[in-house]
């Protein structure tokens, strides 16, 4: 149940996530050297436009990518179609976006 636009949206968000994931992992490896505390993490992220854009972008890409992937599973395994499937895709995307953005706000807003 993918047309060319949903297909492209999923592929492009996958491409975008490659650098997001790599930087995210690299920062984890670098940041845990010498111990890890909540205060240390928040001191890096709070009030930082860079990390807000970084994780904000990451969350948008992951929400679009994940919602489209779940849409395919919902169609092929649960047989959902039409407006139900469309509604579910949008709903899942918004839920993922909401949860992700909540986390982003929690770590970047001072």
């Amino acid at each position: 149940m993918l047309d060319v636009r949903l297909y492209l949206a999923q592929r492009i968000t996958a491409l975008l996530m490659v650098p997001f994931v790599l930087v995210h992992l690299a920062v984890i490896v670098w940041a845990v050297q010498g111990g890890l505390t909540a205060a240390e993490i928040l001191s890096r992220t709070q009030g930082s436009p860079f990390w807000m854009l970084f994780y904000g972008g990451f969350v948008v890409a992951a929400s679009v990518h994940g919602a489209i992937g779940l849409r395919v599973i919902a169609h092929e395994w649960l047989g959902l179609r039409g407006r139900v499937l469309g509604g579910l895709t949008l709903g899942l995307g918004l839920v993922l976006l909401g949860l992700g953005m909540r986390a982003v706000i929690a770590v970047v807003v001072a």
Partner: protein
Amino acid sequence: MAAVLQVTVHRGTAGARRAERFEVPSEANQTVLDVVSWIQQNADPTLSYRFACRVGMCGSCAMMVNGVPRWTCRTHVQKVVDRGRNGGRDGGRIEIGPLANLPVIKDLAVDMAPFFDKWVAAGAHHHPTATRADAPSPVRPDSAAREVANAGIECINCAVCYAACDTVAHNPDYLGPAALQRAWTLLNDDRDGGHEAILDAVSGFGGCHNCHSIGSCTLRCPNELDPMTAIAGLKRASARRVWRRG
């Protein structure tokens, strides 16, 4: 005593399916179609099935053989028989059913209409650009597009790939490997005037983008064609067009 094949045939109409057992003499050179014909000629004349050419040309004899879609006229029993634990001394077991992913009419005959309807839906029919008054357009056999088209044109419409495709099984709107491969060959054919129409047809919700690229179609195609790669070509071409158009 000559070995005997234990044959299970899935029979009946769509609403009333049943499995029947037959014992068929095993021969050294025997195709699955020979087995089905033996049953129809010697055991039960009411058995319905399809074949025509018996040489792998017409594409009408495909069935499920031990759970795998195959062209039965060119499938040797000895290559697919389930020999079981005793090494096949009893001739072995073979299970024959109608092609998967298509509605059953009766016994081993399926309704091919959905399969062919999807060829039309995929734009996989010639879109003429010339009349009989025009000179035939030259086809350069060594051009890159022609080589791509040539790779897929020997399809015999047997629907083996269609029966092998899990995406077709779970997404009934999916156009399927054979129709999409034909769309791809036409997209690479200079004489076809419907390239935009083909790209429109394969870009919808049942189109090429649903293919999971696992390759059961390519694995099972008896003519050793590669619909999976053809579909990848359609994905690229259609994505590029969206890009161009913005």
